[in-house]
């Protein structure tokens, strides 16, 4: 280490060790709070995005969506294709669906939701709709003439209060009439009410695909196969794998399907995140600057004396930068511990969002960015005031 840096370190170590412990502790705690502020809100926002993504996979699309080949309305031999897809490495399971618009009537109130035919057993391996049953039961493989109705679509006893067209308070055990696009009408008993917090579930009707087949007069109707893969995040790679294994149907990833929705969510949160980070950084700059500036102004006379006895201003500046770095390091560590404590608390008492409980998602990049920002700010906050103070006339500094 260079001579001057050694002396600066010597001076810094003693100024810190023998300086006012209360002020030092307070400054470190302020830095710790600033660090938590920099990391916490963005990690909550990241957690919300993770929640949205997971819900999109669990309740709307799975990881991959297989659709009919171009120009076709149905998937050919969907059961065979499901068997084939299930055999591809990296695939957990897949499930065929047939979705169509239909008119649903209950006690004279009619609405036109999406009606989805599912294979209840297979569906459980891919989607988590079974876990969103609010009342009643999930469909069993042997059910016939039974339906699951989304909570929003089911509506309330006072339909005027519902924000979207509803069935006016249908409940488990009641019968609804569904008229399909081919004109066929059939009554279904409501077996369960679903509440997933996702419109693709809460605004839809789910039937057994066998009932759908009878209505359509087809043996094995499907216009979608949803696929669950072992790892989320490698969806594009899995899409290619399916294609390499000879799946000739159109394949989408869940991001492709929810691109617009996801982009708007992530975009909006991104803006909030940027604003929050910027505000936190400005607060950090101001706080650190003020704290270190006050400390330096308080020592203005001492700086003047050090210069008067022949200590070069660069050494004094380095000493204050080292002090700022020390405070920053302790503040970051204390902030890290504070953050861990907050995360532990939130693990036990999670924040409940409309989509479910949110766990803060700590990203290494975010932490690195926050730490780096704090260090840059601290160096500036140590440098600028000491640079300014050591620029003034020695006598002015000594006289205070």
């Amino acid at each position, binding site marked *: 280490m260079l*001579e*001057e840096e*050694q*002396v600066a370190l*010597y*001076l810094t170590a*003693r*100024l810190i*060790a*023998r*300086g006012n412990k209360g002020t030092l502790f307070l400054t470190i705690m302020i830095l710790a709070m600033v660090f938590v502020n920099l990391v916490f809100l963005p990690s909550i926002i990241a957690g919300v995005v993770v929640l949205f993504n997971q819900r999109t996979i669990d309740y709307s699309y799975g990881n991959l969506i297989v659709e009919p080949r171009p120009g076709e309305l149905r998937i050919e031999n969907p059961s065979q294709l499901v068997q084939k897809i299930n055999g591809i490495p990296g695939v957990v399971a897949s499930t065929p669906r047939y979705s169509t618009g239909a008119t649903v009537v209950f006690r004279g109130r009619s609405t036109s939701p999406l009606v989805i035919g599912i294979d209840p057993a297979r569906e459980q391996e891919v989607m988590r709709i079974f876990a969103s049953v609010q009342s009643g039961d999930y469909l069993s493989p042997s059910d016939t003439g039974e339906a699951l109705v989304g909570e929003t679509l089911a509506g309330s006893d006072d339909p005027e209060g519902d924000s979207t067209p509803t069935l006016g308070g249908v409940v488990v055990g009641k019968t609804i009439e569904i008229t399909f696009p081919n004109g066929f009408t059939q009554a279904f008993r409501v077996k369960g009410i679903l509440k997933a917090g996702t419109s693709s579930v809460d605004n839809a009707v789910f039937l057994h695909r066998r009932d759908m087949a009878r209505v359509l007069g087809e043996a094995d109707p499907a216009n979608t196969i949803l696929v669950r893969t072992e790892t989320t995040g490698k969806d594009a790679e899995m899409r290619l794998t399916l294609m390499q294994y000879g799946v000739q149907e159109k394949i989408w990833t869940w991001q492709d399907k929810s691109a617009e929705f996801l982009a708007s969510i992530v975009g909006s949160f991104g803006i909030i995140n940027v604003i929050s980070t910027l505000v936190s950084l400005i607060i950090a700059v101001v706080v650190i600057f003020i704290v270190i500036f006050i400390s330096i102004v308080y020592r203005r*006379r*001492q700086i003047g*004396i*050090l*210069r*008067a*006895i*022949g*200590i*070069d*201003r660069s*050494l004094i500046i380095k000493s204050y930068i080292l002090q700022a770095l020390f405070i920053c390091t302790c503040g970051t560590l204390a902030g890290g511990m504070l953050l861990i404590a907050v995360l532990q608390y939130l693990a036990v008492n999670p924040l409940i969002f409309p989509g479910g409980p949110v766990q803060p998602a700590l990203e290494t990049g975010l932490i690195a960015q926050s730490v780096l920002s704090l260090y840059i700010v601290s160096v500036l906050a140590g440098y600028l005031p000491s640079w300014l103070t050591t620029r003034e*006339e*020695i*006598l002015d500094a*000594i006289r205070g």
Partner: protein
Amino acid sequence: MRSGGNMIRGEGLTRIYRMGASEVRALDGVDLNIPRGEFVGVMGASGSGKSTLLHMIGLLDRPTAGVLEIDGVDVTRLSERQRTLFRLNRLGYVFQDYALVPELTAQENVYLPSKVRGMSVRECNLVCQDILERVGLKDRMNFLPGEMSGGEQQRVAIARALVNRPALLLADEPCANLDTKNSVLILDLIRSLNRELGQTVMMVSHEEWHRQYFDRVIFLRDGKIVDEVGAGSAP
């Protein structure tokens, strides 16, 4: 470049402070020569320019006009960095209120300028112990300024000023905050350093009884030297 046997040579030293539209001539064309090894006192009433002169010679301030040579160097031509190095290597300054770093022990306060000068740790420790022993603080080396009396603190300040063996020791009313007993201790110490080490000393004082310690006294009034009196009688 050495100006004969003079440690300080000043010609027409002038310092003008501007206060709004008016100007104050703190020093008004001072000529002076201080030989090496002399113990010079600077006396005068408040506002006579004593401290301004000492600040100028201590390179804490710059003259508005005039020539100033210290130890053969025209210090008015030095850059800020060169002035800092000059202060470190050739000048020792003792302030009225000790001006020690409160977070450093006596030894560390003395150690700092010697370390900055580039001495090894061993050298630093040796010279620090030696100088602190010389000022009678061998047993107080590890005390913080706040744990020492005013007299002890001023002795640390003198040790700090002398640790780099400066060509010139400047003392700005070093006894101003001390009682008579401690003042005598400090003045005896400076006098003995001047006698034993041949240390040139320039000291500002307003106490008449200090005159007995000085080889020569320069009297200032309104920024001008009005009188010079030789050899006071040392006690």
